[in-house]
């Protein structure tokens, strides 16, 4: 369903009682009775999972899976699957400049990307009461999976030209992938660029932001919103991140969200940052309530604060904890 997403952001900023927007998708396997392994290979199941979550929880938007192996797999990376864990990239496929040069940009739809597009297509027909966002990896995070995360960090100094060749190709693919999501009915994307959270501000300015900016410039419209997610230690990077010009930032629990809110202009929505591991996965309903209360106590006075999870909520998170999160949020609305 076509929506005015600029207005959606404005409404969110103005609303006294803001709805929450956690990165909640994988735990939905528990509602529809399938394994993570089955779901990451099947777009119809993904849509069903999104519907089940939308039926149960009053969220600001519906999110597709945050599976950061899909795009790398499309490029040819080997991926490890597990019954109830999000897939992981197994090994690098780029060892040197020649590998980078001959790296082929995959067609959108290859590998499992077609299933992720299908999920958005199906969900856009059945979830009509809120916007739908697709999860997409960021360019540096994708390049890190193709090159190897430790290697890319050092290559930023040693072999920057190799990194940039891969970044160019990653960027070209991501733009096409997002355009395909747009055609299938997504109202926006949440771009996860966590690996850039390990960089210094100057390296972020050289190896991540120009590519993120290029993607955003290519895809964002009045009807299609670009949300930037980074769950790294973003406090030293805030100025760089703000310079991207995005309207919505989603930050992880590696930072005190209040510290970020202090530095971020009020016209930018800031989402975050209840710990997915500590609270959603390992916490209890009681600890969750305390965590939500504490976050509202420190951040509730900022009109651009929207409570969310700090990152993707793990698949096996107890439903009782997720329910407790929504109850606690509701108590503050």
């Amino acid at each position, binding site marked *: 369903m076509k929506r005015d997403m600029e207005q959606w952001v404005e409404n969110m900023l103005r609303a006294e009682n803001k709805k929450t927007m956690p990165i909640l998708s994988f735990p939905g396997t528990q509602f529809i009775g399938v394994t993570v392994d089955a779901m990451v290979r099947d777009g119809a199941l993904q849509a069903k999972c999104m519907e089940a979550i939308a039926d149960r929880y009053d969220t600001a938007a519906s999110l597709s899976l945050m599976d950061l192996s899909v795009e790398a797999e499309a490029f040819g990376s080997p991926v*490890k699957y597990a019954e109830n864990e999000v897939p992981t990239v197994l090994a690098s496929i780029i060892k040197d400049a020649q590998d980078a040069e001959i790296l082929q940009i995959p067609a959108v739809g290859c590998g499992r990307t077609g299933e992720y597009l299908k999920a958005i297509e199906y969900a856009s027909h059945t979830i009509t009461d809120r916007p739908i966002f697709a999860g997409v990896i960021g360019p540096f995070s994708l390049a890190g999976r193709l090159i190897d*995360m*430790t290697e890319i*960090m050092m290559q930023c100094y040693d072999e920057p030209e190799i990194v940039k060749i891969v970044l160019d190709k990653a960027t070209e693919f991501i733009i096409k992938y997002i355009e395909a999501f747009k055609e299938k009915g997504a109202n926006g994307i949440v771009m996860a660029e966590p690996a850039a959270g*390990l960089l210094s501000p100057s*390296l972020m300015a050289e190896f991540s932001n120009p590519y993120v900016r290029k993607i955003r410039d290519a895809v964002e419209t009045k009807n299609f919103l670009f949300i930037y997610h980074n769950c790294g230690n973003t406090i030293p990077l805030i100025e760089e991140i703000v310079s991207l010009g995005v309207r919505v930032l989603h930050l992880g629990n590696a930072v005190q969200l209040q510290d970020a809110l202090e530095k971020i202009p009020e016209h930018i929505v800031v989402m975050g940052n209840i710990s*997915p591991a500590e609270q959603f996965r390992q916490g209890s309903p009681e600890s969750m309530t305390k965590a939500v209360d504490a976050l509202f106590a420190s951040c509730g006075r900022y009109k651009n604060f929207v409570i969310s999870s700090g990152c993707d909520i*793990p698949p096996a998170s107890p439903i009782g904890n997720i329910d407790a999160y929504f109850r606690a949020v509701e108590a503050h609305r």
Partner: protein
Amino acid sequence: MSILDNISEMLQKGKAKDVQAMVQQAMEEGLAPKDILEKGLLAGMGIIGRKFKNNEIFVPEVLIAARAMNKGVEILKPRLMADGMEERGTVVLGAVKGDLHDIGKNLVKMMMEGKGLKVIDLGVDIKCEEFIRAAKENHANIIACAALLTTTMEEMKVVVEETKKAGLQDVKIMIGGAPVTQEYADLIGADAYGKDAASAADIALEMCAG
């Protein structure tokens, strides 16, 4: 500026070739290998660790500095061994079974080596018995387990239990990784929790010192 200060400075800039050349030069000038190690290389890594903790430098800068240190140590090692210099302790390190993420583990390794600890890096997806075997073979002081996933972190409990069963009462277990907390370390009976790579190295050094 002394040559040891130069070694430290070049290390901090990640200039591996310069570090190698200066370590060689320092040895030729007759400086004690132990001094070159401690006052040059480890001093430089100490500054790197502090700057990393204070957000003055970031992961790539730590990695290239650690690589420069290792290049310097390679040159020193034969002399250090000939002089009978002992490591400050031995740590067996790995990402637990099922976990393939290694950047955090690699950072911990480099930080620990920067403290003068010997690190046996088993890699990723390491079974409990492999940790125990390596700890026995290397007379390790510490088994350090890393995990990035909420599912794989549960393997850490197995490592704690099996290490005790194996009779390695003197081997301490430390754990770390994005989903791991001090509460979780307490819950499974681990001896220590490293909040970040620099803290993990500090704690490991303290534990090895006894």
